[in-house]
């Protein structure tokens, strides 16, 4: 009974919500790129770029704003906002490489993604040495002023979930709803999906396949960058090498588990977020901590092995499209 209570404790759930966000944002990005027919395993590297640029820009901007008379509250919102935008921008630029490689040059998308992940590790270390003199971490930074829900925060039992809410959390939830609407109801979404299902048919109807595939990849970059920014600005309060811990890959699994839909990705990400939170909280058990830390990874394998048969990927997912050949 004790175990059950602790598995459902409010503090654990609050932590699970926080840890769901980076996986969810990246999984949402993965939905866009794969719906357009481009497999993007470089999202892990894109997240890494987001973590670095998010933290670095937040640090630089908050330094620049540190004038004696300035109002503290205004400053604390501008710097992390700039950081988030920089993280998204870095994600877009980084995924542009993937788009050029896989859409324009039509190379193997898996390999391009793996190379991007390698590039991201090297680049983040290099830039960190350049900016901060050390390879693995940035100075500490301050994120957004956390929100709390009036009314609920007064109830002690609910305080962990009702306070300390990052503004990025509601944004992420909003993006789920928007994503579902975009893919189901808008011209852009339908065309994006057509390009991922049957590019030749789409091409015949006059849809510019390359342009839509570029759009899908770049949106995924923006979202993965934002996820990285959230990790370093809101959660880590600074950049730390390896802080993504494979969440970019886990997000891909969440997208598959969510059957390539934003709402499905939300459910799957929540599951992985829960395991992530569990891996951080369970300390005093008979199970060695090394095994607890890989709970999310084990869960990922089990989920892929258990449910994937039911999942149907976009028909042209991962297949380069060229106008000339059939």
């Amino acid at each position, binding site marked *: 009974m004790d175990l059950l209570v602790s598995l459902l404790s409010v503090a654990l759930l609050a932590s699970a919500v926080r840890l769901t966000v980076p996986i969810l944002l990246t999984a949402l990005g993965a939905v866009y790129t794969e719906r357009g027919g481009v497999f993007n395993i470089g999202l892990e590297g894109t997240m890494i770029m987001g973590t670095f640029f998010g933290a670095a820009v937040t640090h630089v901007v908050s330094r620049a704003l540190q004038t004696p008379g300035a109002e503290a509250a205004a400053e604390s919102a501008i710097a992390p906002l700039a950081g988030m935008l920089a993280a998204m921008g870095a994600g877009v630029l980084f995924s542009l490489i993937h788009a050029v490689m896989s859409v324009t*040059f039509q190379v193997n998308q898996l390999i391009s993604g793996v190379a991007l992940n*390698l590039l991201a590790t090297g*680049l983040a270390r*290099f830039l960190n040495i350049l900016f901060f003199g050390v390879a693995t971490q940035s100075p500490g930074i301050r994120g957004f002023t956390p929100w709390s829900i009036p009314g609920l925060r007064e109830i002690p039992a609910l305080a962990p979930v009702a306070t300390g809410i990052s503004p990025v959390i509601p944004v992420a939830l909003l993006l789920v709803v928007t994503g579902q609407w975009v893919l189901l109801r808008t011209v852009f979404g339908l065309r994006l999906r057509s390009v991922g299902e049957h590019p030749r048919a789409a091409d015949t109807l006059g849809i510019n396949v390359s342009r839509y595939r570029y759009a899908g990849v770049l949106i995924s970059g923006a979202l993965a960058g934002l996820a990285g920014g959230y990790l370093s600005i809101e959660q880590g309060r600074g950049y730390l090498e390896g802080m993504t811990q494979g969440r970019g*890959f886990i997000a891909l699994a969440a997208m598959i588990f969510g059957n390539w839909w934003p709402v499905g990705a939300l459910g799957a990400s929540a599951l992985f977020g829960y395991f992530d939170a569990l891996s951080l909280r369970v300390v005093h058990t008979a199970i060695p901590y*090394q095994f607890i830390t*890989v709970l999310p990874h084990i869960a990922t394998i089990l989920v892929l*092995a258990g449910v994937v*048969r039911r999942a149907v990927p976009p028909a042209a997912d991962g297949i380069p499209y060229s106008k000339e050949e059939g």
Partner: protein
Amino acid sequence: MSARVRLVVLQVAAPALAIGFAALVASGIILAIGKNPIDVYVTMVRFSFTRIDSVAAILFKTTPLIFAGLAVALSFRANVWNIGVEGQYYVGAFAASLVAFGLRGLPAAAHLPLAVFAAVVAGALWAFVPIALKLRRGAHEVITTIMMNYIASAVVLYLLADVYRDPTQVGTPRVRTPLFADEARVPLLGPLLNRLGLAIPEHSALNGFLVLGLVLCVVIAVWLSRTRFGYEVRATALNPDAAEAAGISLDRVRFVMFMTSGGLAGMVGLSDILGFFGYFDIDFPKGLGFLGISVALLARNNPLGIVPAALLLGFLDRGAQGVQVFSGVPREVITIMQALIILAIVVAYELLTRYVRAQRKREAERAVAGPAMRETAGGS
């Protein structure tokens, strides 16, 4: 004939151009931090090739890359994507360590092969999970192998720190296994090469695994080009549907290639631990599995191409040390360059493939158009 010569030239030029492109971008980065790229490259080459022990060091760094490259190439050849070489070699190296320090009193002729065998089995076992889940349950092997990498490092860390840590080291910051039995260590190449007149210094760790790696490259090349199974692999890669229609079991080809890949991956770390360290510790070299992907791509998954590709990356890795020490350029520049080489090389090969296809088409058109034109000329 001239078209064929041009093709050969292009095939050599493609990787050269890709490396040149990567070096160019890296030069930009070096310039940006206020250093002279030419100086840096000169330092790299001078550091690497002016002394025989430096050459030996490059060959030592090349050794694990040959195994890693082969492992990746074999899976890629069968269109299954083993991104898990990284994890497979951790468990392989740890399994070999268990045998190497756990058993005592065996003759070298039995102990060393037993350690290698343990590594192969452990690597293959780690590869079995993702391939079985792929073939039986449809789980995407790219994601499962990456997850297995994380699990491998957790398992190895646990076994190393909590179960098999050398009891005499407790209380010190060193986390490592007990020393291996001498019988499990691999013979060094230094003494042999010295007898041939090369002055390999005493401290060089160049060892028998280099020879094993070279032999394996040749054996696998023959296996894939001269046997029935090799033919099935090629058929599967070229056209899976046609291969299946011809009675080839795709699942069997993929399974065998993936498991062989895992077994080879198990041996990646052996040159380092059995040839140099003599124990397994927490600073065991990491990242070789991912470098293996670069090696395989550079070699276009050709077993014989693995050797020059591994040499190139071994040189870059060694050069990175020199650059860091003598030019004050962070070695990460070289990591960036390795990633750029992959990106440039896949583009170069893709363009080459397109060129060849266009060339063939043109030749075929000419062959068809030639007689037809003569006919019309005769009829008029």
